[in-house]
């Protein structure tokens, strides 16, 4: 029931997103055809580009055409390569997903463990070290970190390849680099919410039952503090998808992010539109999943929804 309701609320968002992405071309100041054709183009050239873009059609028809491009390869082609956009995207998607999911998973595991360590012994040496690392992790531009890693591991030590995506070894550095941010964020988040939970009376109730401290923390406190952490994990994943734009450029991985950057610098509008739409779609789906997960973890939200 809740799943349906949540889906119902995601649909308008998706619709608005698709509309925004569709209108993207119209938002470009001036005539997009003019810009595409360049300053020296003749009127006929501009007119033919207009026709090609379908800019003369009514808005609704164009929107329908745009939506059709999602499943119909012939409906939208890249200006640059003249290949269907859908094909371009689907070829590169796996690389992006490997880096994003790998980075997120690694970050979550490391971050959660670090957060628990921090919260268990606040003021200790490990806490101090992790706090410093965390701040550094949040402040580090990942493109710079990527460059440094390439220089150290690829150029100096020669352990790993510097760029490309042909072997599994190629993915090690990008995943490591991209994992720094979620690891840092997560360790903070878990530590803060664990510490907050630690002051709650129900932990004392649990202690008065005669439970061991480990059980009190892992069974009672962690579950409560993870609720907050999970909802952030979803947004994190979105951030990772976005981060892939940069990471893929640094490590020369042919992924969707790289494709998008190239498309932006070459004004390849169909590719930009569909790439953004895809990112947004993933983001909406992930938020949905996170919400459901939070729901499952926290019985209170279940009932609130029921009451409404």
């Amino acid at each position, binding site marked *: 029931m809740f799943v349906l309701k949540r889906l119902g609320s995601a649909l*308008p*968002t998706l619709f608005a997103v698709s509309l*925004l992405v569709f209108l993207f071309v119209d938002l470009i*100041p001036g005539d997009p055809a003019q810009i595409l054709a360049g300053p020296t183009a003749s009127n006929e050239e501009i007119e033919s580009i207009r026709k090609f873009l379908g800019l003369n059609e009514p808005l609704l028809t164009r929107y329908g055409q745009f939506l059709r491009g999602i499943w119909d390869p012939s409906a939208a082609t890249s200006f640059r390569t003249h290949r269907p956009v859908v094909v371009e995207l689907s070829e590169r998607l796996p690389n992006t997903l490997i880096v994003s999911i790998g980075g997120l998973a690694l970050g979550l595991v490391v971050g959660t463990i670090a957060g628990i360590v921090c919260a268990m012994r*606040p003021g200790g040496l490990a806490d101090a070290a992790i706090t410093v690392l965390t*701040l550094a992790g*949040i*402040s580090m*531009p990942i*493109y*710079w970190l990527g*460059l*440094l890693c*390439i*220089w150290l591991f690829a*150029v100096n030590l020669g352990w790993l390849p510097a760029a490309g995506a042909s072997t599994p070894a190629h993915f090690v550095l990008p995943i490591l680099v991209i994992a720094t*941010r979620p690891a840092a*964020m997560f360790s*903070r*988040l878990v530590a803060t919410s664990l510490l907050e939970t630690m002051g*709650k*009376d*129900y932990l*004392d*109730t*649990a*202690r*008065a*039952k*005669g*439970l*061991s*401290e480990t059980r009190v923390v892992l069974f*009672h406190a962690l*579950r*409560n503090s993870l*609720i907050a952490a999970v909802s*952030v994990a979803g*947004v*994190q994943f*979105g*951030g990772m*998808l*976005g981060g892939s*734009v*940069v990471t893929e450029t*640094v490590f020369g991985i042919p992924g969707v992010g790289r494709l*998008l*950057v190239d498309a*932006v610098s070459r004004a390849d509008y169909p590719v*930009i539109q569909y*790439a*953004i739409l895809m*990112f*947004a779609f993933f*983001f909406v789906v992930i*938020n949905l999943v996170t919400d459901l997960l939070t729901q499952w973890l*926290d*019985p*209170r939200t279940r009932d609130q929804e029921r009451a409404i």
Partner: protein
Amino acid sequence: MSIMPNVLSAPERAAPVDAFAPQSRWLLLRRILSQPKGVVGLTLVTLYLLLAIFGPMLAPQDAFRQNFAQTLRPPSAAHWFGTDQLGRDVFSRVLVGARATLGIGVGGVAVAFLVGVPLGVLAAWRRGWIEAAVMRAIDVMLSFPDIVFALAVVAILGANMQNVIIAVGIVAIPVFARTARAVTLSILAEPYIEGSIALGANPVRVILRHVLPNISGTLLTLSTLLFASTLLSASGLGFLGLGTQPPFPEWGTMLGESRSYIRSHPYLATFPGLFLAVSALAFNLLGDALRTIYDPTSRRVARRPPILSLLRRRPPPGEAQQQSAEKATDLAVSVRGLRIAYRTGEGLLEVVRGVDLAIRPGRTLAVVGESGSGKSTLLRAVGTLVNPQEVAITAGAIRIGGEQALGLGPAALRDLRRRKVGIVFQDAASALNPVLTIGNQLAEAVTAGSRLDSETVRQRCIALLRDVNIADPERRLDMYPHQFSGGMKQRIVIAIALAQNPEVLLADEPTSALDVTIQQQILVLLTEIQKKRGMAILLVTHDLNLVARFADDVAVMYAGRLVESGDVASVLERPLHPYTQALRASAPGGSEGRGRHLRTIAGEPPLIGRLPSGCSFRPRCQRSANRAECASSEPGLRAVAGRDVACVFAEEATR
């Protein structure tokens, strides 16, 4: 790279009253500088701002002059950071680039702030469709990963510095709007807002005078943290070649240009990257320091290394404990000379200053006191639940059911808690874990320390719920705490406390959060259970009427010490200590006193750590009348007329 993560951990809750001191800038500065991260952060931020202002003037060479004779030189005396592929001096370029890099950050945050904050405040103030529309728009905007959104904006507007500012600004708008809405909502829920509306203030005044000042701290924190991530986002665009256009230097763009030379000339990437990373770090540090000031949830308790907690492990020496050892065995609870102190930044702060208690099985002892009297800390100490990192037991002994309760190892402590102690808290809602079913939480209490098959456990849980008069227990086992009313939750907490047949039940204001009619139900239940099981109850409360009805013995606590203790009949009917007398007399009640003035106690309870010399009640005492005896030393408990009183002139009351 992304803006969101930082922001999600930014406070969405406004700080409580005490987090604010007078709004003097100097005080804020002092508070920032009292934290190491604040000192480092603020220093670095100041340096960076100076760099942004004076950087171009300080540059030793022309940052734009190309010199093809000197391309890609490593750092040297002439070129501190080396030269780039066009032979330009990297050091000069970094200095010149500071203004652009930081300027983009300032611009982006300003755009986001100026659009986002009014939107958020408006949404919170007007609610209704405006709020729904704003929230939906935020939802849509947040559906794009931020860098992707920024890329799209740049793709539409074209790549230059101004458009990068707009792009990173737009990306941060929803974050500001959402946070501003959340904190405004929390401020609007504060009673002082209602107070000012009730005063007759108009909406504009309420927003300007009351809401904005109170959300400013949170917004300042958010701006600082967002500044760091905006900086990284904007430079990321530069790195991708979509930011500030060459030849103008910007750190991200410089990094992007250096990418091709990372194999042969790594120093090209080193310096702009370092400046960028340190600037982000600086703002994050400062933001963190601000958050510690404005967001109560992020503040960690000042804790000491656990050297002091060793005191707790070691049974404190002293003959008091020795001599009472034999007698104490038939008491359910025996406390001797207990002293408890909070660990604070300034050292130990004593809250319980030498307390003796004795409860026989089957009896109820009520500890009565006002807030700050130390009564709750005392109860937690008896329950062995004080956190040794925050609270130190500096002297005294606690025996529960004849067993020493201080200085135990973790396993022995657990065992003692399980077998002997049950606890009931004031707020039943927070005493139950919100994410576990009632059955789960009961079962945990039942199975602790033993192995039982699941059916036996279930039957025991059901029996426990029956004991606390909960109808239909089979069905209730699968329910969650929030599905019960306050009174029912308190019954469940009691059931959990009873699970292992404790010898003593500790109850900390068990009914003061409940309605009067429910209070009565809970107290009747407690006395019934006590009769059936013969356990001792230690009841902590501020309500004398409740004591009169439900306790056998009473101990009145004032400023960390007992001032009068004995059986309820003698202490409450004929109180001898001036404090107890005044408490009895100051309660309104009965039609006989109608309209007449109540007897009051002058002044207010003293703050711990700032007690007067001699008897701590002296400044408020009518009996003392500035007699020297009261000021010279703190009176101890002595037996007078069938109870113990800590007053030098206790006999005056018996006449």
